[in-house]
C-alpha cells in the first residue's frame, strides 16, 4: 500500500470514528416514550453499524496491503449521508 493511500485510510477511519461516536451519543439521548423514538433509534443504530463496517473494511484491506476500493467507500458514504438526512426527517 502506498503512503498516500495509507494517509487516506487514516483520514477515513478518523472521520468514521467521529460519525460513529456522534451517533452513539444521539442514541443515548433519544426519548423512548415518543413515537418517533423508534425511527430515530433505527436510523442512528444503522449509522453506527455502517461506520463500524466501513472502519472494519478499511482496517482489513490496509492490513492485507490491498488498496481501498472507491466503490465500497463511496457507497458507504452515500448511505451514511442518506441516513443522516433521514435522521433529521423522521
Amino acid at each position: 500500500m502506498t503512503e498516500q493511500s495509507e494517509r487516506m485510510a487514516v483520514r477515513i477511519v478518523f472521520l468514521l470514528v467521529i460519525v460513529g461516536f456522534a451517533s452513539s451519543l444521539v442514541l443515548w439521548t433519544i426519548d423512548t416514550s415518543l413515537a418517533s423514538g423508534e425511527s430515530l433509534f433505527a436510523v442512528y443504530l444503522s449509522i453506527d453499524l455502517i461506520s463500524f463496517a466501513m472502519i472494519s473494511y478499511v482496517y482489513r484491506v490496509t492490513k492485507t496491503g490491498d488498496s481501498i476500493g472507491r466503490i465500497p467507500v463511496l457507497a458507504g458514504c452515500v448511505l451514511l449521508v442518506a441516513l443522516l438526512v433521514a435522521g433529521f426527517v423522521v
Partner: protein
Amino acid sequence: MSEQEEEKSQRPNHPPEGAATHERAMAKLVHWFDNRLGLSYELLRPAPVYSVNPFYWLGALAVVAFAIQGVTGAIMMIYYIPTPLQAYSSTLYIFQNVSYGRFLETVHLYTAYAMIMLAFMHMMRGYFVSVNKKPRELMWITGMVMGFVTLGFGFTGYLLPWTVVSKSATDVGVGMMAALPQPLSGFIQFLVVGGGTDSGTILRFYDLHVVVLPGVLLLLLVGKMYMLEAHGVSEPVAGQVPLPEKKRRLIPIFPDLTIYLLELAAMFGTAMLLISLAFPLDLAPEYTPTLAAQYASQPDWYFLWIYQVLKIQVFEGPGLTVALGLVSVIFVALVLLPFLDRGTTRRIAARMRWVTLGLIFVGEVAVLTVWGYLTPGAIIPTEQAALVLGATAIIIALVSAGAYKVIFRKLPVGTSSSDAASPASPASPASSGAPYATRSFNTASLWTATSFVALLTLGTFGIGGAISGAVQLISQGIRVSTLWSLSLSFAELSVAIAGTVYLLYRLDLGTGSIRRRVKAFEVGWKQ
C-alpha cells in the same frame, strides 16, 4: 526472552517492527486479545483468502440472524404469556406499551424471514458448487437438519401471537401432519399438539420455540463447526484456473476473518433495521373460531410452495398422503444428496443434469410460492397445475441447456484447482480431457447468456400473468381487461419460447449437437 514469550511474539497478530504508530497501536490491541483468548492460534485454523467472499458466509449470516432473534426474543419473553387467553393480549401489550415494542417484534419477524432465506441460499449454493462430496457428506446432512430446525422455528413461532391468521395457518399445518402415515403422524402430533387442547398446543409450541429448537440448533452448529475445522473451507469451482497463490494464502480467523464476519453482520443488521423501519408489522385480529371461518387459511410464505402442491385437485382427500409423500421424497432426496450425486467432479460445467435439476427446483418453488400467494384458498385444477409446473420445468431446462452450450462449448481442456487439490473432488473425467472444462466468458457468450436470462424473465412473467389471468377469469367471470391481460401473458410466453428455440438454433449452427439428436430440427437447418 523466554521460549514462551518468543513463541507468542511470532503469532500472526504481533505488532510488526517498524510499523507506523497507529498500526502498532491497533496491532497491540489485537495482540492483547489474541494472547489472552488464543483466537488465532489455539482454537481455529486459518482460512484461505478466497473465503473472503459473501457467498462463503451465507451460513454464518444465518447464525447472525439467529443471534439477533435470540436477543429480540429474550426481551419479548419478559412480557409474553403463552396461554390462549393471554397470548394475544400480551403481544398487543408489547406492541402498544413496551418502548420500541412494535419495532422489536418487526425486527424479530423479518430476521426470522432472513434466516430462512439465508439458510435456503446457503443450501442451494452448496448444491450448485457440490460441497457435499467426500469427505463433507455428514456436514451436508447436518446442514440439512439445521435447515429443518430453522423451518421448525418458523412453524412454532408463527402460532405464538395467537392471531386469526397465525392460528388458522397452524391448524392447517397440524391437520396436514394427521395425514402422514403412522407412527410418524402420532409421534409428531404428540410432540407438537399433545392432548389437542389450545392451551397444551401453545405451551408446547412455545417450549419448542424457545428451548428445544435453539438447543438442538446450537448442538448441530457445534457439530458442523467441528467438521468445518476438520475439513476446512471447500475450494471454489469457478474462476481463474489454477487458483493463484495469492488466493490460496492463509489468513488468521482472528482478527482478519472475524472482522470480515462482523463487517457482513453490521451490513446485515443495518438492512434488517431499515427494512423493519420501512415496513412495520401490523398485528392481525385475535383468533376466534367465528373470525377464523371468514379467513382463507394460508401458511407463511416459506411453507406456501408445499401448501400449493397440496391444493392441487388430484391431491384432495385421500390424495393428501400421496402429496405429502411426494414433498417428503424431495426433502429426503436433498438430505441424501451426497449418496445420490455420485460423480467425483465438483465442477459446474461437468454437472449439467444436477445443476439443471437444482434450477428447476428453485424455479418450481418460486412459481408455487407466488402462485400460492395469488390464489389463497383456491383449489388448483390438475390440468392447470400440470401445465404451469411442466412449462416452468421445460423453460428452465431449455434455458439451462442453452446456457451450457454457450458457456461451455469449444472448451480448452484445463484442470480446476478445486479438482486437483481438494479431497472433496478428486480428479475427474473432465480434468483428463473430457469435453467439459472451465473457461472464462467472452463478450459474445456474455450477450447470449444475457439473452437467455432475459427470455427466462419474460417467460416467468408470462407464466405468472397467465396464472393470474386464468384465476381472475374463473373467479370474476369474463372481462375485457382480463382477456387483454391473458392475451398479453400468452404473447410474452410465446415470445419467450420462440426466442429460446431461435437462440438454440443459432447456437447449434456451429456444433450441430441438437440437430444430430432431434431429426425434426433438420428442417431449414443451414450450415
